[in-house]
């Protein structure tokens, strides 16, 4: 069935994302008019403009775009698996665990694994522990979420301990990233994220029909021919992969995973898991939040994680407190 509403939603989000990217490339200490941005991207600008756009800003915008998309997709996926809108990687503690592991590698505790690998390992550990503690219910029900919140708190404490025990310079360098920032990204992590995101998205599109049936009860999903266990395990693994890789680039900007899928679900047709729309919305949120963080109090820079927390926290409260008859709570 061609689905006009979802197509319209996705195209609108894509336009918004492009606008956000161009605005972000044009704004900063040196203002570059949008037409010059386009010229620079096509390789026709003067060396000065080309340097500002392509060298200084583009890699940061790309990093934000990719990590926002990955976090939002991971959030949408985990919400679907848990059938609970609160069950995003940020709340389950996966972000924090990934951060703790990555910080351990950055400030050096004798491990030389790259941040991407360490963040992935942290994400996988947190998920495995939350899953184990949740018992037979798996990702369903509140035990998974409560266990995850606990793991997140412990991982957050571990990060603080690590930072307090290293030289002040190293701690200073790692700090902005632990609250979520696109300033400390490494080129390699961004490349690994890009590959992981492309692969993850492709697999998710292949299993999207099965994922759609997870919105019903288990019995309905099985009756419609979904391989329940396989789909869940694959979904959970992809959610961990996307979160870990994104955190290795931008740190724990967890609220994107809550906000973006929510927007996507509102504007897309019900009944389909809005993965593409979530990814586009997450990318847009991240690029815009980073733009605000860079420019609002320039030259002082506010980490993107703080911007999303300021915008996202009231929204989280609203979700928790509003009377709801939605099936996803």
């Amino acid at each position, binding site marked *: *069935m061609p689905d006009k509403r979802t197509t319209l939603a996705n195209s609108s989000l894509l336009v918004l994302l492009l606008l956000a990217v161009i605005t972000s490339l044009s704004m900063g200490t040196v203002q570059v008019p949008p037409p010059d941005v386009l010229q620079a991207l096509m390789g026709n600008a003067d060396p000065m403009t080309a340097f500002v756009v392509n060298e200084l800003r583009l890699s940061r915008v790309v990093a934000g775009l990719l990590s926002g998309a990955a976090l939002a997709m991971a959030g949408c996926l985990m919400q679907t698996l848990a059938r609970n809108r609160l069950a995003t990687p940020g709340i389950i503690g996966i972000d924090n665990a990934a951060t703790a592991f990555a910080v351990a590698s950055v400030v050096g505790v004798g491990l030389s694994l790259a941040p991407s690998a360490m963040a992935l390992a942290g994400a996988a550990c947190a998920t495995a522990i939350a899953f184990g503690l949740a018992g*037979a219910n798996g990702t369903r029900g509140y035990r998974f979420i409560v266990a995850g919140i606990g793991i997140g708190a412990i991982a957050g404490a571990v990060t603080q301990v690590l930072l307090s025990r290293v030289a002040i310079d190293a701690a200073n360098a790692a700090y902005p990233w632990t609250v979520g920032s696109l300033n400390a990204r490494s080129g390699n992590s961004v490349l690994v994220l890009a590959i992981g995101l492309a692969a993850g998205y492709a697999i998710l*599109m*292949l299993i999207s*029909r099965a994922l*759609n*049936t997870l*919105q*019903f*009860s*288990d*019995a*309905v999903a*099985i*009756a*419609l*021919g*979904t*391989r329940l266990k396989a789909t869940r395990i694959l979904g959970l693994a992809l959610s961990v992969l996307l979160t870990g890789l994104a955190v290795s680039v931008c740190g724990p900007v967890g609220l994107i995973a809550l906000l973006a899928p929510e927007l996507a679900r509102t504007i897309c*047709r*019900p*009944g389909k898991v809005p993965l593409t729309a979530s990814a586009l919305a997450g990318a847009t949120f991240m690029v815009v939040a980073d733009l605000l963080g860079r420019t609002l109090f320039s030259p002082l820079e506010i980490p993107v994680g703080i911007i999303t927390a300021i915008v996202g926290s009231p929204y989280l409260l609203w979700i928790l407190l509003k009377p709801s*008859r*939605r*099936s*996803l709570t």
Partner: protein
Amino acid sequence: MSPAQTSTLAADRITLAHRHFTVAENLSVALPTGKVTAIVGPNGCGKSTLLNGLARIHAPAKGSVLLDGKDIHRLPSKDVARKLALLPQDNTAPEGLTVADLVRFGRQPHQGWMKQWSNEDQQAFDHAVQAADVAGLAERALDTLSGGQRQRAWIAMAVAQQTPLLLLDEPTSALDLGHQIEVFELIRTLSGQGKTIAMVVHDLASACRYADHMVAMKAGKIIEEGTPAEIVSPELVQELYDVSCDLIQDPATGSPLLVNVRRNSNFSTA
């Protein structure tokens, strides 16, 4: 319009357990092809568990469920979904989902990532919404419908699967009398089109009226099996529900009717 092929479904000495608690042991049952089978029994007797076992929702600890003679848990899930549809008890749906969206899900077992919505899917869809009489509700959201309408929409989804077998878990629970009759008559119509149907029914009277074949369960065991006229007796009712009754024949349909149902013969006022 209905699929010409038939399939057989049987349980072969299955034991069904929740964790370590055995609900039913050593059950064997075969659904008569083309007939409506009602599974009846008191609360907690294991009738829903048996239905979920037959529908491969609940894997048996021992024994096997055979679909066309093959172990259902070894068959590809999608192949099974093309032969067997289920209307479960818990049918929550995403908010805002329309009847048409729901019925389209019924075509999922027939689609693949390369195979999009086809003419065949559209025909099955049209047939299903007509059979379940929800064509006029197609664009309505499920959460705006009455209980009876919603149940018909779910049945339409199962019908759209175009399976020779249809299992229903208490299809009329929480429905008022009018809606109950509506759903049971729809089930009879589907049976008339050649489907093999099994349903868990709470109400013995409805089971007598609408089923061709009856499986009576108590405490995890099948205690009687046969046509309602053959097996329903005051003794069976006493054993199943611990109540006394008299039986007469429904003058309109010939099916057994329970009358003078009372808690226990000892306290009879007669």
